[in-house]
């Protein structure tokens, strides 16, 4: 059965789009049919991070409004066959997303794919609510930094009230993805510790993604980091997070920047 995941945060710039691309690619590499959906209408960027910006013809709004059929708007990844992108519109605004229209598109996506991963816009307005509305699972992307944790708390509140699941009295599955984590600074007490963030937000931990220059390199080159440099520390952390998303029980460690099995051996246990 298809799973709909929303990658959300409240705060901008914490790594939602990077995480959507990296997790989507990691799941697809393991053979699942995955679509990553950009909900950031007017400010799309998932196409750029995925390296598909030159190939966008139709978008989510065109499908919602019936100007294009879903298969016409889906862009198949050139590297991983089972990975697709549904881009957002760059020229319209969020009001073009109707509740009925989005519901209809999500139902069609559920039929075609195993995983539907929705990249939410920042903020707590209509766009963010639309992105989370039909989700079964929410990934709350948080940086170990006070304003990000506060905004994540706000988003968790929305997830528990504004989603379809919440309105039907069910619980939406929420996970914390800690990104831009610097193990050295956290050890020196200069950065909020993982346990602190977990205690404050009290949702289970999906993974910890270390701060890394590989992430910038990946977006410069238009490739999910999990495809571009699979042995890098952030890619391994995303691959593990993808496995946990599928239900595997894996201990959460922060991979170090070292390559190969040595990095794995010296991975630091944190939670």
């Amino acid at each position: 059965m298809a799973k709909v995941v929303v990658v959300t945060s409240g705060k901008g710039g914490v790594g939602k789009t990077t995480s959507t691309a990296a997790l989507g690619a990691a799941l697809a590499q393991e053979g699942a049919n995955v679509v990553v959906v950009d909900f950031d209408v007017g400010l799309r960027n998932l196409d750029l991070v995925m390296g598909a910006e030159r190939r966008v013809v139709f978008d989510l709004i065109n499908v919602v409004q019936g100007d294009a059929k879903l298969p016409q708007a889906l862009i198949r990844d050139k590297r991983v066959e089972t990975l697709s992108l549904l881009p957002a519109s760059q020229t319209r605004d969020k009001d073009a997303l109707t509740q009925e229209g989005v519901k209809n598109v999500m139902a069609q996506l559920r039929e075609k794919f195993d995983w539907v991963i929705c990249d939410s816009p920042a903020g707590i307005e209509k766009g963010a609510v639309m992105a989370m509305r039909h989700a079964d699972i929410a990934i709350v992307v948080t940086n170990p930094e006070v304003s990000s944790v506060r905004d994540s708390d706000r988003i968790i509140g929305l997830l528990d009230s504004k989603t379809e699941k919440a309105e039907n009295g069910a619980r939406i599955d929420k996970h914390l993805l800690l990104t831009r984590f610097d193990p050295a600074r956290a050890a020196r007490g200069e950065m909020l510790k993982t346990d602190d963030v977990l205690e404050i937000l009290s949702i289970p931990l999906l993974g910890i993604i270390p701060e890394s220059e590989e992430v910038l390199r990946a977006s410069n080159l238009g490739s999910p980091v999990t495809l571009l440099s699979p042995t890098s520390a952030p890619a391994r952390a995303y691959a593990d997070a993808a496995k946990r998303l599928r239900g595997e029980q894996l201990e959460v460690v922060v991979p170090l920047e070292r390559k190969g099995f040595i990095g794995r051996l010296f991975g630091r246990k944190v939670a």
Partner: protein
Amino acid sequence: MNNLLSFFRRNKSAPVARERLQVLLAHERAMTGRSDLLATLQDEILAVIAKHFTIDREKVQIKLDRGESVSTLEIDVEVPSMAGAKVA
């Protein structure tokens, strides 16, 4: 081998980013005010084809590749075989 190549290109990602942005933004700036050009183009092309064949809109694939100097628009229309349609 691939890893070796990427090792030597390690510090060269910024020029790639710059070029990608230049191409993308040139197109986006030019698109302002005529966002539905592609949709219009598609409708008109399909209308012409529909004069001669019955086409299924679900079986139309449109591919686009925006380049710096040349862009390509590829429209793939599945035209039903007339003979086959009559037999079936």
